[in-house]
């Protein structure tokens, strides 16, 4: 796959692939614009879109006073379907899964919101800065018992996850590295929702981490993790599995780890090269991932202009197995094939069918407008070019065309066609 720049044909399918991965898909107009602009300008636009509607922030600061997680979940869904900063949100969702932290233990919606805001603010910046910030994030300190990590009674939870999940991956550290790093992290706690270093609880003795001996503090232990060759590979693997293919091969991981280091650990610059690479646009990468519930619901709403209440979307995602801010464990969501099982598939099917029937948001989306008012004869073509531009098997296309022909009227035809496409397995791949 490699890191060579893309030189192939940038067609509608390629543009749709880019917008699906760099964000959460596109409307018909947005897709047409991306095609018209070409790859470079589209990428420039994707990276420039970073600001949300300010009123959403002001209101949210007040709603946080309710001390409930549901408004935070709904707020995130609202930002996602508003689609004003798609890459920022895509990356925030990725880091939320990477540094998976759950409200169920933290029990503080402000801290959870603060952590997601941290991912929004720093998620595209220097990964090293991000890791240091996460280590001092109050939600993370509570989640991994950092506030209970004291000299003489070290709690290894945070140190272990920094190595196993956040920075290196299994096999790239020893148990001694974990226990010694845990000593380095002692003393940190949370006071009035802020991370606070309490010197009296810090272990000031000498520690041996990755073969180096010194009186390491927490920050230095993080730096040692970042200095390990495995770290850039670990992060490169995360970027590749999120943006390109779920199981990247070792050579690609190595190549992109080098790019990450070359770009001074800057995630945005690394992604800028990744999203313009030959590997990213390869056939192997197209529709290679099973969409998570949040990705699926967001992309359907954006593509069809559907606007259910964000709280409904958050609840629907939860019913499909992805409750935002409530990942099942410190490993996050397993994703991939685990997204689909009998129960979750039924939940996806019911929600999407209900959305098309207008049962979710009170009225169905304006499908005619979403498809560009194509008329009955071009309905199937227009719908497929928006929702499945990579093409579909002939029998499936014939089924959709038959449904369109048999419909009572144009509106019914659009609803039938959209429902059939969205409930087809292909539409659940991104």
């Amino acid at each position, binding site marked *: 796959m490699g890191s060579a720049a893309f030189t192939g044909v940038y067609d509608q399918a390629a543009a749709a692939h880019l917008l699906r991965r760099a964000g959460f898909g596109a409307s018909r107009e947005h897709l047409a614009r991306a095609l018209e602009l070409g790859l470079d300008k589209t990428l420039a636009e994707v990276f420039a879109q970073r600001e949300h*509607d300010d*009123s*959403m922030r*002001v*209101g*949210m*600061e*007040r*709603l*946080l*006073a*309710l*001390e409930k997680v549901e*408004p935070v979940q*709904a*707020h995130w869904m*609202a930002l996602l379907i508003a689609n004003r900063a798609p890459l920022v949100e895509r990356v925030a969702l990725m880091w939320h899964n990477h540094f998976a932290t759950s409200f169920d233990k933290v*029990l503080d919606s*402000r801290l959870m919101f603060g952590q997601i805001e941290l991912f929004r603010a720093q998620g595209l910046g220097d990964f090293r800065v991000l890791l240091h910030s996460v280590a001092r994030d109050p939600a993370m300190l509570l989640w991994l018992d950092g506030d209970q990590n004291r000299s003489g009674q070290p709690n290894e939870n945070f140190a272990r996850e920094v190595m196993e999940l956040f920075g290196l991956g299994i096999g790239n550290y020893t148990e001694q590295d974990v226990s010694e790093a845990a000593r380095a992290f002692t003393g940190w706690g949370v*006071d*009035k*929702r*802020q991370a606070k270093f309490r010197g009296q609880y810090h272990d000031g003795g000498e520690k041996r981490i990755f073969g180096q001996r010194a009186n390491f503090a927490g920050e230095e232990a993080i730096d040692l993790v970042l200095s390990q060759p495995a770290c850039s590979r670990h992060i490169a693997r995360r970027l590749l599995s999120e943006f390109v293919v779920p199981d990247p091969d070792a050579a690609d991981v190595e190549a992109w780890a080098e790019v990450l280091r070359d770009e001074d650990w800057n995630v945005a610059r690394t992604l800028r090269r990744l999203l313009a690479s030959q590997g990213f646009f390869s056939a192997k990468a197209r529709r290679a991932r099973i969409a998570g519930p949040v990705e699926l619901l967001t992309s359907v709403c954006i593509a069809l202009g559907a*606007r*259910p*209440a*964000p*709280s*409904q979307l958050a609840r629907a995602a939860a019913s499909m197995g992805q409750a935002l801010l409530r990942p099942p464990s410190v490993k996050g969501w397993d994703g991939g094939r685990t997204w689909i099982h009998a129960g979750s598939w039924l939940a996806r099917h019911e929600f999407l069918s209900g959305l098309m029937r207008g049962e979710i*948001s009170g009225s169905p989306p304006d499908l005619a407008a979403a498809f560009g008012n194509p008329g009955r004869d071009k309905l199937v073509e227009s719908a497929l070019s928006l929702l499945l531009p990579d093409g579909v098997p002939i029998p499936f296309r014939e089924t959709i065309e038959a449904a369109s022909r048999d419909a009572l009227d144009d509106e019914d035809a659009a609803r039938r066609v959209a429902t059939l496409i969205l409930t087809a397995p292909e539409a659940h791949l991104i």
Partner: protein
Amino acid sequence: MRLFLPALACALSIGSIPSARSLIAPQSAPQASAGAGGEADLAGLVDASALVYVDLAGVAPVLKEGLGHPLIERLLDSDLVQTLLAQAPMTPEEALSLGQVLFGRPVLPTLAALTDEGLEFALGIKRGEPAYLLAARGSDAGLTRQVLEEVLSMVAEEHGADVDSFSEPHGSVRGLDTWYLGDEFALSIADGLLLISNDEGMLRDAIDRLIDGQGTSLLDNEGFRSARREHRQVAQLAWSWVDIDALEALDASATQDLRSLARSAPAHFLFGPAIASIGAAGQTTLALRLADTRIELVLEAAGIEGDPAARVLPKIGAAAAQPFAPSAEGAARGLFYRDLVGLFQNRTELFPAAVLPQFAEVTSNLALFFGGADISDEVLPALSPWIDLVVDEPLFLDGAVPDLPLPGAALVVLVDNASKVGPLLVGAFQTAIGIINVQGAQEMQPQLLLNLELVEGVTLTSAHFPLPGQGQGVDMRYNLEPACALVGDRFVLGSHRSLVAELVRRLKGGAADLGRDGATAGPSGERLRIAGSAFAKVIRANAAALELNAVLEEGKDPEVARGEIEALALVGELVQQLTLSTKRLDSDRVRVALVLDLAE
């Protein structure tokens, strides 16, 4: 002759019968009606079994004044209506002008002329189906007939029928010109009286009573007569009467929800005995009254005597032993009556068996707060059933003003044997704080800190959460800074220390000048007054959160949500105060009144 829809029939000239006005005027009222009080109106024309009667006599004067009616003028001038009208396709004046163009005559004056001698409606059951009769009486008989013919022509045109088929009546009933619109409606006209019904039989019966003046009618219903006798002494826009018992006898499911009110523990505890006892009523009346800047809705429920719900109402004629001197200040003020002892003693008859275990549970839990004391024997009997409520803007601790600020509230009750029971109440408050802290500790929540201080020589017990970190947001919980104090024989319990402290100062300063036993002047019923400006202030203070909540929970467009929240605040600014009051009128009746006073 069926010209238009299946039931179209013939007509007869009006000239062959006596003037209908002479038939319906009180001085020449038919015998049966006259015998029932000389009120020869629609009530004298419908069966005694009528379920609903509505008198809209006050509508015509309002129509006559039109947009110049003081109340309508005030509403039209308000920021709320101006804001709403800014989004409307036309102004009220333009809408009326359009109506005049469409109908060929001024809309409101014409409607006023058609109803200036009365507008009434009755609903009953005929052959197992709902049947209604509407009577409009106008002083200008020619106008009434002319308008009727015009409207019928328009209806015919609308349905693609021959317009001429309505130019003449389709038949007559006892000499009254009559038209039929399919099986749905029958209309008869005599002089200025227009009768409309969806049941031809009901219409014929009414005309028989009108002409013969014989047969029983609603006026023979004693309950109806006595209810209306009282209402006629007060000018009102509309008055309605509903026979709940009769409705229940016909269809018990229709009154099921209402009946459950009298047996609902939440209704008794939250809304009070007067509102709960409406569920036991045999008949109810509802009156709507308008004044220059006031809208009043008065509901009376009769037939409650004998129901267990009546046992927990205030004593008849007794003034309230108000624990605290009334004051017009503050965001809201209330005086409630909750006979907790009566509710406990009558619980087996008042409430469904399913909720009785909850009483035992509450008693047991409260015993924990009161150090093992039996609350039904030792505590509740010592508390006055009259409870004073004060709602006002509290002073929050520095650095702890909540991001979603809410008004504070305090309750004042009179306590018998205060030297013994008072400490029990204060102790229960402290125990409650301890229990809240235990629960909070299990969820890693901040703890309430207890504080004792002297205010005007009175010990004030309060609790508050530790100050939040700077810039870390102030959660909803900071709206709670609970406090209590015993001032002589008055126990004060409030959501905020500042509110309780202020009440202590006022009580010590002589505000507790009302008597304990109702001997001194005091209200004889419950009341709750809410200041519109305070409501508006709460809405505006929380507007950003309310708007976003509407976006997130209901999927509203942010602009739409903003407009709705602003409209809600403007409603508050338009209303000077909203007053809800209840009163036990006698052993059999209660009254619930809702009064809306608009800001000048």
